[in-house]
Each structure stands twice: as C-alpha cells, then as structure tokens.
C-alpha cells in the first residue's frame, strides 16, 4: 500500500534527496562525466532561430561545449552590453558592431594568437579585416560584411522610360524628376536618416566613397567631396524628389517603407534588397522588381562588418574561440558553414574571399536578382568606414549621433550645407581634444 502523503513524508523525501545529492558531490560527482563548458552568447535580435540552428550544429559537433544564447533588441544592444560590462555580468561571446570596437577593445580579447586565426585572416576581405582590427589587433571574426548599394525599383524606372539604373548623380536626379513628373511616385528617393543608429552619416560615407573621397580629412575638416555629396543630396530635398519622412526612418524602417512600392531608389545596405526584405514575395509589393546596382560616379562604396568577439574576462576563452571560429570562420573540415548559410537565410554577405563561388550561395543570390560577381566585386572594393571617417576613434559614436542631427537640419533646409559641415568639423575637433 502506498505511503500516505503528509508534510512529514515530503520533508523526509526532500532531506533524503539533498543528502544524496551532497554525498554524490563529496564522492566527486564531477569525476564521473566532465561537465561541458557553458558559454553565454549575446546576440541582437536578427533571425535568432537561424542562430540557434548554428548553435545546435556546433553543440552536436562539440559535445564538451554548451552555448546559451541571450537576445537583446538591436536598438538597446550597445547600452545594454555596456551596462553588463560595467556591472561585470559574465558573458563569453557576443556580436560586436565595428563602430563600437574602439571603445570595447579595452575588454575584448585579441584573437591573433589563437590557433587558425592567421589562416582565416589570409582569406578575409579587406573591408572585413580592417573593420575588425583595432591598433593592429584582430578582435573578431566576421558575422557578416556588407556594403552600401543603390537599391532600385526596376518596374518604376522602366515605367519612366529608363532601362538601367543611374550611373552618375546627375542621371539619378534626372530619373527621379521623370518618375515624379509622370506621377509614378510623389517622392522617388528614400533615405534612412533617423538620428539614432546607422543611417544618415553612413549614406554620406557611401556617397563620398563613390566619388573616391572621404568625409573628414586628417585635420577633421569636411572634404570637398563630402560637401559636393551633401549639396547634391540637399538639392533632391529642395526639389521634392526625396521623401522628408525619411528623417524618422532608420535603415530597417526605410526598407519596410520601400517595400510599399512608392519609391524608385534607396541607398542602403545591400541585404535590404534580399528575399527577407524588398524581394520577400509575401510581404513586399516590389518583390521581383527590386534590384541592386553599384553606387553612381566611380562605383566605389562604403563597407562595414559585424563580428563575433570574445569577452577577455571569459573563464572559457579556449572554448569561446572554438565557437567563434565555427560561427565566424570554418568548421573542422575548413568549410564556411555559417557564412554560406547566412547568405541563403538572411541575405547577409560574407567576410571571406571565394564564398560566392559556392553553388548554393550563387544560386541564392541569383534567385533575387543579384549578380554574384558584382556582389563579390563590391565587397572586395568596399572602402572601410575607418578610411572615410574617424570610425575607430573612441569618440566616433558621439560624433556620429551629433552629426546625424546636423545632417537632418541640412537636408530639410534648416541649416545651410556649409554651416552644417562646419558644425561637423567643430564637433569632431572638440571630441578629439576631449579624448586626446
């Protein structure tokens, strides 16, 4: 007959369980089977199911390591990580944006000395390698690298009588005027220029790079190339060719707006033309007609990278490196597992040479109208942000936010371009002096 369930019986059972657990511990319970190392991996919220799949694959191949993923919303990511770091909250691996690398380099682990790092560096695209290197040290492996491209609505361009996207800035203006005059769009041009996050200044960087120049020179003065880019850009607002609502839009929300089909062109990162965004057949009104083109003028553009970094305070740095090497490099067979998978699942381009040659990758790019060779050429020639602005100065993020605000004022005509450029330069010099 079963024992009657009483409080005393429960307490006895509880006591026995605790005693048994304690005895097992005293006898060296860990000795029976080594506990796997547990890595805490911090990510922002982009396709976390895909990331979890990668983690599952890694854990299956590496049973001695378990990875716990923690997701932070993208717009809170940097402040939250800084809070965690200040509070000494333990974590091992994390996503790092190249723009914050200089600040975070004080607590990120340099990776150059790890086994296999040198070989991976040999294969990296220049834009990826430079974006992940600070003061000569490599602080990450690429989650992805990308570039700014002209994303255009081919149907709208053809509707206005243009068989190809613009190859110069003047041509871009003419096409926009024609589209507007034919009533195909009230404001053919869309730009992501919200004050926070990457957007407005990155567009200027891409424009300056496309003309073969920089935004700020070594003396932190705004260059003539940047001024020319700004004047052209402001003129599109004055003519009513650019949508002023873009001031409220960051790259993500502007991509969503572009998917509504009311715009002809957008200068933004290449992946927004992918099947998860403008070429999403279920959500986008411009599915199948959104295409990628190089930026006008010299067709050069600005590139950047996101990376996997390791917390120098991690107690499992060796295991963390194995995980980072898998996520941002190759598996044990030397295959770029996640870089290839990110192309097909997220339209995120790679940080290593030769990935585009993979048949699956090439087919995925072609499926939404991208030319693998052109994508590869853009990635290969992309100018790192640090060659256009003082991207790796510890004060850069503060300058960028301030400059984004001034840029908004310039675009809508509240501040003349020359005055805005002077404000950019003055702020950069002020911050450089403070952080000298």
């Amino acid at each position, binding site marked *: 007959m079963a024992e009657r369930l009483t409080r005393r019986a429960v307490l006895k059972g509880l006591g026995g369980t605790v005693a048994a657990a304690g005895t097992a511990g005293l006898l060296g319970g860990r000795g029976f089977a080594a506990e796997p190392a547990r890595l805490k991996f911090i990510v922002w919220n982009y396709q976390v199911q895909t990331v979890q799949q990668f983690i599952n694959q890694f854990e299956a191949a590496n049973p001695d390591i378990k990875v716990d993923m923690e997701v932070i919303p993208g717009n809170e990511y*940097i*402040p939250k990580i*800084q*809070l965690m770091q*200040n509070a000494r909250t333990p974590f091992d691996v994390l996503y790092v944006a190249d723009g914050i690398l*200089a*600040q*975070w*380099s*004080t607590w990120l682990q340099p990776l150059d000395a790890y086994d296999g790092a040198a070989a991976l560096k040999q294969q990296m695209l220049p834009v990826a390698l430079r974006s992940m290197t600070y003061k000569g040290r490599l602080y990450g492996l690429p989650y992805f690298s990308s570039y700014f491209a002209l994303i255009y609505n081919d149907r709208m361009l053809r509707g206005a009588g243009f068989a190809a996207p613009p190859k110069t800035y003047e041509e871009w203006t003419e096409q926009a005027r024609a589209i507007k005059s034919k009533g195909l769009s*009230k404001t053919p041009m869309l730009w992501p220029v*919200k*004050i*926070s996050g990457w957007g407005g200044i990155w567009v200027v960087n891409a424009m300056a790079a496309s003309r073969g120049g920089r935004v700020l020179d070594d003396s932190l003065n705004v260059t003539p190339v940047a001024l020319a880019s700004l004047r052209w850009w402001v003129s599109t607002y004055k003519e009513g060719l650019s949508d*002023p*609502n873009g*001031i*409220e*839009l960051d790259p993500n929300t502007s991509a*969503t*707006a572009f998917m*509504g089909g009311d715009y002809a062109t957008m200068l933004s990162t290449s992946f927004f033309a992918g099947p998860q965004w403008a070429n999403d057949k279920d959500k986008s009104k411009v599915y199948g007609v959104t295409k990628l083109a190089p930026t006008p003028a010299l067709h050069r553009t600005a590139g950047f990278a996101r990376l996997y970094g390791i917390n120098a305070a991690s107690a499992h740095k060796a295991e963390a490196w194995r995980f980072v090497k898998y996520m941002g490099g190759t598996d044990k067979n030397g295959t770029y597992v996640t870089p290839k998978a990110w192309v097909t699942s997220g339209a995120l381009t790679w940080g290593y040479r030769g990935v585009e040659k993979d048949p699956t990758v090439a087919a995925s790019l072609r499926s939404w109208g991208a030319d693998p060779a052109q994508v590869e050429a853009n990635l290969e020639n992309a100018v790192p942000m640090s060659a256009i602005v003082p991207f790796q100065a*510890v*004060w850069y*993020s*503060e300058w960028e*936010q*301030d400059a*984004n*605000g*001034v840029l*908004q*004022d310039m675009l*809508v005509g*509240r501040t003349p371009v020359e005055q805005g450029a002077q404000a950019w330069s003055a702020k950069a010099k002020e911050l450089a002096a*403070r*952080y000298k």
Partner: protein
Amino acid sequence: MNSQAPPAGLPASGAPADVAFRRARRVRLDTPLRLLNVPSLVLIAAFTLAPIVYVAYLSTLDLRIGAPGSGGFAGWANYRFVLSDGAVAAAFRNTLYFAVLSVAAATLAGLGVALLLDSDAPGTGLLMAGAVLAWGIPEIVNASMWQWIYNPTFGSLNGLLVSLHLTDRYRAWLSTPVSAMHAVIFAYTWKLVPFVVIILYAALRSVPLDYYESAALDGAGPWARFRYVTMPFIAPALAVAVLFCVVWSMRAFDIIYVLTSGGPGQATTVLSYFTFAKAFQFGDLGAAAAVACLLTLVTLALTFGYWRALPQEGGS
C-alpha cells in the same frame, strides 16, 4: 473652514495646555510608530540615496570608456565641461519647455476631466475606467503606442486626418523640431492626465455638498462656486499633483527614447536622454554623472521652491 468644536472635556484647540498635552502624547505614541518606518528608510537609503551618492562620486571621476588615461580623479572638471557644453544648455532648455508645457496641459486637462467625472453626468463611469486604464499602461508601452500613431507611412493619426480630409498627405510628425517636441509633449501628457484626474477626483468627492448649497443660496454662480468653494478644497491635492508631475516631467525619458531619440537635430533632447546617451552610448560616464547630478539639483530646487511658495497649513 473645517474647524469643529472640540469634544467635551478637552481644552479649546490652540490653548497652551492643549498644545503641551498633544506634544506629550505625540512623543509617546510616535516613538514606536516611527520605528516602523525603519525598514522602508533602509530600503530608500539602499536603493535611492546610495545610488545618488555613488553617481555624485562618479561625477568626480574621469570615466571615458576607451580613452587613454581615463579612470582617475577629475575633481570639478566634468562639471566645468558640461556647463560649458552648448548641447547641455540646449537639453536644459528643452527639459524646461517639455516640463512646463506637459505639466500645464496635464493639470488643465486633468482638472477638466475630474470636474466632469464629479458632475455624475452619464458616461462618467466609462470615462473613469478609461482614465484608470490609461494610467495603468507602462510608459514604454505608451511610447510605443504613440510611435505607431505618429508613424509617417502607416500611422493612425495620418490615416484619420486624411480620411477626414483635414490633410491630403501623410505627414512626418516627428521630423521638424516644433512638431516633434509638441507631438512628444502630447503623448506624454496623455499618460500624465489620468494621474491628475484620479487625485483631483478624490479631492472633489470630499467637498461637502452643503457648501455648494449655501453658496447657491447666497447667489453664487458656477464660476463663483468653483472659485470660492471647489478650489480651496482641492488646492492641496492639486499642489501635490503638480509637484509629482513636475518631478516626473523633468526626468521623462521613455517617450523621448522611443519616439525621437532626441531628434530631429537636438530638438527633443532633454537632460535625462542626454545623460543616457552620454553614459551608455558614448561611454562618457563621468560627464553623464555630472549632468545627472545637475538635473537632480535643478529638480530639487524647483520642488523646494514650489513647496515654499505654497501657503502654509492654516494660512489664507
């Protein structure tokens, strides 16, 4: 106005013997009662005073993440820096404008709604439920809701205005300094009004009806009854409501963070957002702590000044 005759056997209120008696009784009764406050005082010290002291300490340090030589004692340098920074001055002006307008709007709207509720007109129950519901919405949810309402491409405000033919195209409400600041103030006020309503409605229900009847017999009209009967009764509650609204408005953050991130330009950058950005986006913890301390001092000064300006109990 509320004075009543003392119960039989006690001296008239205000007599010396009465004062001495009450003081002695208060000491005897209050000592153990005051001990009951100790746990809450400990919690306040741990979670409010200690962080304030720590932030004050941080404000004297050179804490610029990633900067060479950072980490040492900086004395007043952070204060000198932020006081000479034009961005801080602009944020201070924005903070004052935001606080004054939102408190004034919330007070007037809250008073109006409370009077409507007190009138027991049909539908006031629903109105009260709506007020409580709005008050119960977390600030971040309120901000996100207004972000959707103001959205320039699919926002419901634009949809409403277009469908009513009040405008012919969707507008970016948060794209110009003037409209952005007032849109933010409106969204914040919407969340603040229910608090004022609840406080004032409770005060209005405590006004004895016979005062209104007496005033009406003396020939007082609606305005006179409001001015000379209602207002004196609800003035203390109104003062408390305004005080809380001022303090909250001075440190408003969520609404700015979600709706504008301080833009366009620096048009809606208030001190609390500036502090956040300085500390956690730009890594200048020392300067951010100095701004936070200055904001605390300004809020304390405003609160103290306001409190001192209020009539004392028993005053006119």
